[in-house]
């Protein structure tokens, strides 16, 4: 088995359900063609640098998987059939794959996906420094340094990444 990663660009003008079903379809193809999906990284809708198939928007998904050359062949055959996939790009990451390490990675990713929603709301409330400080104080066992720091200091670094995201 080899380790691959693919970027799928789904037509960004399609409704969310269509995009989701396309992603599900290709995830299933990976599993059905002797592949092992390690993780999907959803980049969301982005502006394309140029027009493809009449649109300027694309929904990007990065798929990380292990498989054989036949897996990739089958996938690429299906990309060409499916109109929703606007662009795809597959890169081989390594020639050898340690299945046990891969299983561990899948488990780690599944675990990381769960605490994320908990961690995400914590830095989110930037406008009100008071609740942020309260939250920092309520979780001292997770981030003792952050709680020890003064509320202004804790709030300042949180505010800087926010405008970057909005751009």
């Amino acid at each position: 088995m080899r380790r691959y990663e693919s970027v799928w660009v789904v037509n960004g003008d399609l409704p969310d359900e269509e995009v989701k079903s396309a992603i599900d379809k290709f995830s299933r193809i990976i599993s059905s063609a002797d592949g092992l999906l390690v993780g999907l990284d959803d980049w969301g809708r982005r502006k394309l640098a140029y027009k493809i198939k009449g649109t300027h928007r694309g929904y990007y998904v990065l798929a990380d998987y292990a498989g054989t050359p036949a897996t990739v062949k089958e996938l690429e055959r299906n990309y060409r059939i499916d109109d929703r996939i606007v662009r795809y790009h597959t890169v081989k990451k390594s020639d050898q794959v340690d299945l046990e390490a891969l299983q561990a990675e899948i488990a780690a990713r599944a675990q990381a996906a769960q605490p994320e929603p908990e961690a995400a709301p914590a830095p989110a409330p930037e406008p009100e420094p008071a609740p942020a400080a309260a939250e920092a104080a309520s979780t001292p066992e997770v981030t003792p340094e952050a709680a020890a720091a003064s509320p202004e200091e804790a709030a300042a670094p949180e505010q800087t990444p926010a405008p970057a995201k909005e751009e």
Partner: protein
Amino acid sequence: MPVMPRRKRKQFYVRRKVCRFCVDSKLAIDYKDSNTLRQFVTERGKIIPRRISGNCARHQRRVTRAIKQARLLALMPYIPQLPPT
């Protein structure tokens, strides 16, 4: 720079450029990271030559490749849409 001390000096001094990827091994070249790759492309979307970017041959090759891959995925432009002049 309000004062220009360099003005007195007439001869040019060529500073030897070093490949920034060789200096910092943590810097990765990745076709998915279009923000980093944008540093190696002109305003017109052309790949900046090695004599200007200062990259070593090996890293320039990788940068070039990554830019071309990013272009294919429409993460970077082949020809940018510049505002009309």
